[in-house]
């Protein structure tokens, strides 16, 4: 026999039979048949019937394949070479293979069939006629497969049931769920172990009757349990219940019970099935949760109360009266039984109650202290009796809260008092500022304005929070020479004077004080003091001094005017007299002319004329009259010049600043002061012709120049040298920014010892009555404060002194915040080159 090729595909290799990889759709049959013709026939037939068929031709092969592969059915021929069908069957069952097997035999021995069935074959087919076996085979195979599938399902269901039981046991054990049953009919209880354990008893101690059991239920819950049982036995509905039991050892446990009423066919309750569980831990946790929630709510109320009280602290300007009222309103809400809580607050003379206040039995009170002194109290009470079972109406937290509230109220009162005081101080300060026309602001180191007093605010708008250079000038950086910047840099007080252009050039002195706030940050306070009055007095002083200066000049001026007046008058009188004499001569000449027309002129008339001519000094008159006229005109011009110069010199004191031609001012000043220097000194003028005008007060500037010129003349006079005239040189220069006027003399010079006092008021080296000592002091004030310029001098004793005045060309008035950098106190630079000599003033 040659082996037949294996039909179908070689099955895929299966590493482990127990884990089939392929889900089959057709039952897979191994057909073991040594008759190859029959085997092929079976194969074809079964394949057509939608089975997957593998062939094996002997017992060994079949066993080997069955060990390797999954089959759903084994079609096993009995007579096989070697190991026969029964042997194969025995071996298979011996190794635990439960594959359904149909034995096929040609011999038809009943003994063999019984043996096969005993060995675990599922069916037995006799192969008689071909068609017969084939017809039978399909049916048998299907039946065997179905039976086997059924058996397998049953086995799996049994396993699942066992598993389920096992799991339930585990679950009951794990969750400590007890199971019990009460036979209603017999009134008999049966409990499982867990239930016993739960109740703290042994199975032997299980109560027989329900009433026995109920004695172990907490007495407060007993009626609940009994009622529930009765109700549900009547309604036959499931129930669920939690109650407390008392164990024999005295321990109290919570149990949760679920029950079901089981009825007979007539609907009469037979049994009560139940499960029970110990829920003590859960109940305790729940109770703890509730308690925690309650406590949280209490703390929340307390926090809200403290917050509300704290908010009272933030209300600006709250009076003690208002504080007391609001506190009395707020406090009761924080208490546990807030609906019956009442509060009373007393601070000093103020007392307030909460709306529902009445005197109560339960009270809690704390004193309110202000600066360590008891000034009142805060009291909380309950308007109703304490609930039974409450260990006391006030918790420790509430005591703490009341203490906190009392402390906070004390602080609020302190603060209220401090605020009231601060308010009073501030009002007073602002009143003083307003009354003295003083402005004040406070600026931080970043140049932000922190405070503006109301007076300033009214004039300039509230510029708090702005930078002053931005607010006033739209600049991004501070103005040049700003006192604020200087004060912050040097940490020293800066004082300067300026005019408030927005207030009609009101003159002010700005004092910038640097200071550190509580946190150590540098700030400045700018105090702007009105100096109108001082300026007025200064003006009056200047004016008074002007009168003095004019008085000094008056001698010269009077001389300069009165002398020409004298000779003008004399000359005119001379002209009058001379004309009278000439008139007589002319009259005589006229008579002679008439006589000559009438004939001859008598000789005595000619003699008379000659006599008249001599008497009238006609030759003299002809010589002197033109001279007298000319000199009279000179005198008139001299008077006119002085009067003009006087007019220019003495401008009114309060005029507006105007462009002043300094060259012209110097000339007129020289004219009016001519008498003071004309006998002493040669005046040299070195004036810049293209000198731009300066913005100034001509009258005051003339006053400065006359002081310098008179001083120069006096310094020359002080040399005591009558034989040689001194020199006064007056120069003007322009350097693009400033105009400079220098008055240089060849006088005695200023001794070094007094050089730093030259500009001091009332300082003089002159005799009493010769000078008030105000001249240079006032000149200094006019130049620096009045015109934003400088005045300095240098002097060489024995050789002379030069005073130099510099004036800005565009003397624009600055604003308070950035004035022209005028000199601070005594800040005029002194350039002194001096040795021995006399001071010129």
């Amino acid at each position, binding site marked *: 026999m040659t082996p037949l090729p294996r039909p179908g595909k070689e099955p895929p290799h299966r590493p482990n039979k127990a884990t089939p990889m392929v889900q089959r759709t057709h039952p897979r049959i191994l057909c073991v048949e040594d008759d190859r013709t029959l085997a092929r026939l079976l194969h074809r037939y079964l394949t057509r019937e939608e089975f997957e068929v593998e062939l094996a031709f002997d017992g060994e092969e079949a066993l080997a394949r069955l060990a390797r592969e999954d089959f759903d059915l084994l079609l096993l021929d009995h007579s096989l070479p070697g190991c026969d069908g029964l042997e194969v069957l025995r071996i298979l069952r011996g190794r635990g293979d439960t594959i359904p097997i149909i034995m096929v035999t040609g011999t038809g021995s009943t003994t063999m069939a019984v043996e096969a069935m005993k060995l675990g074959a599922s069916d037995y087919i006799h192969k008689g006629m071909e068609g017969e076996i084939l017809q039978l085979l399909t049916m048998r195979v299907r039946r065997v497969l179905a039976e086997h599938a059924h058996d397998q399902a049953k086995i799996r269901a049994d396993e699942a049931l066992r598993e389920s039981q096992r799991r339930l046991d585990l679950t009951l054990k794990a969750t400590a769920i007890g199971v019990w049953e009460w036979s209603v009919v017999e009134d008999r209880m049966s409990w499982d172990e867990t239930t016993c354990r739960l109740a703290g008893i042994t199975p032997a101690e299980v109560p027989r009757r329900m009433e026995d059991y109920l004695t172990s239920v907490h007495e407060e819950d007993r009626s609940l349990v009994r009622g529930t049982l009765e109700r549900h036995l009547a309604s036959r509905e499931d129930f669920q219940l939690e109650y407390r039991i008392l164990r024999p050892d005295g321990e109290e446990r919570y149990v949760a019970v679920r029950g079901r009423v089981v009825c007979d066919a007539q609907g009469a309750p037979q049994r009560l099935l139940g499960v029970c569980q110990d829920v003590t831990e859960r109940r305790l946790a729940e109770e703890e949760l509730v308690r925690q929630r309650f406590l949280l709510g209490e703390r929340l109320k307390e926090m809200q109360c403290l917050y509300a009280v704290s908010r009272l602290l933030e209300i600006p300007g709250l009076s003690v009266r208002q504080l007391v009222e609001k506190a009395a309103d707020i406090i009761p809400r924080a208490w546990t039984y807030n609906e019956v809580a009442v509060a009373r607050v007393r601070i000093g003379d103020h007392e307030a109650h909460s709306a529902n206040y009445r005197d109560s039995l339960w009270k809690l009170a704390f004193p309110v202290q202000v600066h360590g002194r008891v000034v009142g109290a805060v009291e909380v009470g309950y308007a109703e009796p304490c609930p039974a079972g409450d260990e006391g109406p006030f918790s420790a937290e509430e005591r703490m809260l009341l203490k906190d509230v009392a402390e906070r109220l004390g602080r609020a009162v302190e603060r209220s008092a401090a605020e009231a005081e601060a308010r009073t101080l501030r009002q007073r300060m602002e009143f003083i500022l307003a009354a003295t026309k003083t402005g004040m602001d406070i600026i931080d180191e970043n140049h932000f304005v922190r405070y503006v007093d109301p007076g300033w605010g009214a004039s300039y708008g509230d510029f708090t929070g702005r930078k002053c250079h931005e607010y006033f000038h739209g600049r991004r950086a501070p103005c040049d020479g700003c006192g604020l910047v200087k004060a912050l840099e040097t940490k020293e007080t800066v004082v300067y004077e300026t005019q408030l252009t927005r207030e009609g050039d009101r003159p002010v002195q700005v004092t910038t004080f640097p200071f550190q706030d509580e946190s150590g940050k540098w700030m400045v306070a700018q105090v702007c003091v009105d100096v109108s009055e001082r300026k007025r007095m200064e003006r009056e002083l200047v004016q008074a001094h002007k009168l003095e200066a004019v008085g000094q000049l*008056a*001698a*010269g001026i*009077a*001389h*300069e*005017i*009165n*002398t*020409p*007046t*004298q*000779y003008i*008058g*004399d*000359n005119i*009188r*001379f002209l009058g007299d001379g004309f009278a004499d000439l008139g007589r001569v002319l009259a005589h000449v006229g008579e002679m002319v008439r006589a000559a027309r009438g004939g001859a002129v008598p000789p005595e008339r000619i003699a008379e004329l000659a006599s008249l001519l001599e008497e009238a000094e006609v030759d*003299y008159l002809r010589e*002197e009259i033109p*001279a*007298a006229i000319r*000199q009279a005109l*000179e*005198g008139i011009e001299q008077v006119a010049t002085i009067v003009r110069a006087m007019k220019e010199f003495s401008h009114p004191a309060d005029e507006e600043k105007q462009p002043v031609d300094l060259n012209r001012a110097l000339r007129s000043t020289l004219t009016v002061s001519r*008498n003071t220097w*004309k*006998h*002493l000194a040669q005046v040299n003028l070195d004036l810049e012709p293209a000198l731009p005008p300066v913005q100034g007060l001509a009258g005051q500037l003339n006053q400065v120049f006359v002081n310098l010129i008179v001083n120069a003349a006096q310094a020359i006079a002080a040399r005591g040298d*009558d034989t040689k005239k001194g020199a006064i040189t007056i120069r003007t220069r322009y350097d693009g920014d400033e105009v400079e006027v220098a008055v240089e003399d060849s006088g005695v010079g200023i001794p070094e010892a007094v050089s730093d006092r030259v500009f001091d008021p009332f300082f003089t080296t002159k005799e009493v009555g010769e000078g008030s000592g105000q001249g240079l002091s006032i000149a200094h004030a006019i130049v620096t404060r009045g015109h934003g310029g400088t005045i300095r001098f240098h002097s060489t004793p024995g050789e002379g002194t030069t005073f130099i005045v510099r004036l800005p060309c565009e003397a624009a008035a600055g604003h308070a915040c950035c004035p022209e950098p005028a000199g601070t106190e005594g800040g005029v630079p002194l350039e002194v080159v001096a040795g021995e000599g006399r001071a010129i003033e």
Partner: protein
Amino acid sequence: MPEHTVLFVDDDPNLLRSMVRTLRQQPYRLFTAHDGREAVAVFKAHPVDVVVADESMPGLSGSDLLAWVAEHYPDVMRIVLTGYPTTALAIRAVNEGRVFHFFTKPCNAVELAVTIRRALEERDRIRKRTAAPTAQGPPREPSAGWYDFTDPYRPL
């Protein structure tokens, strides 16, 4: 030749010229000087009966000059003619200069002329009372020098 000499001192030449015109017919010689230095020179060169001096002059002031005259020529009548009268000046003129009269500019020319005449009469009276020749000695002819800087008087 007139018996008397009057010296007029002022730093303003126009004023001197007008005085010369005004007083040209008066019976005395009129000398003029521009300042104290010239005046002193005249005194030293000529007998002077009356001196009329301004106050404000370069160098020696009017009151200084009159004080000097009062000291050196006490008989010479001294008259002040000032453009700016002050109390201090008046006191000094009286006390140190012991002046005969005190005029302020502008003054009436007739009044000035009359006062000068009265001063001359006073001067003559004093001279007669003392009955002694003056310390000045006989008048001398003016030297050529001072005509250069003063106006010549003009005799009647």
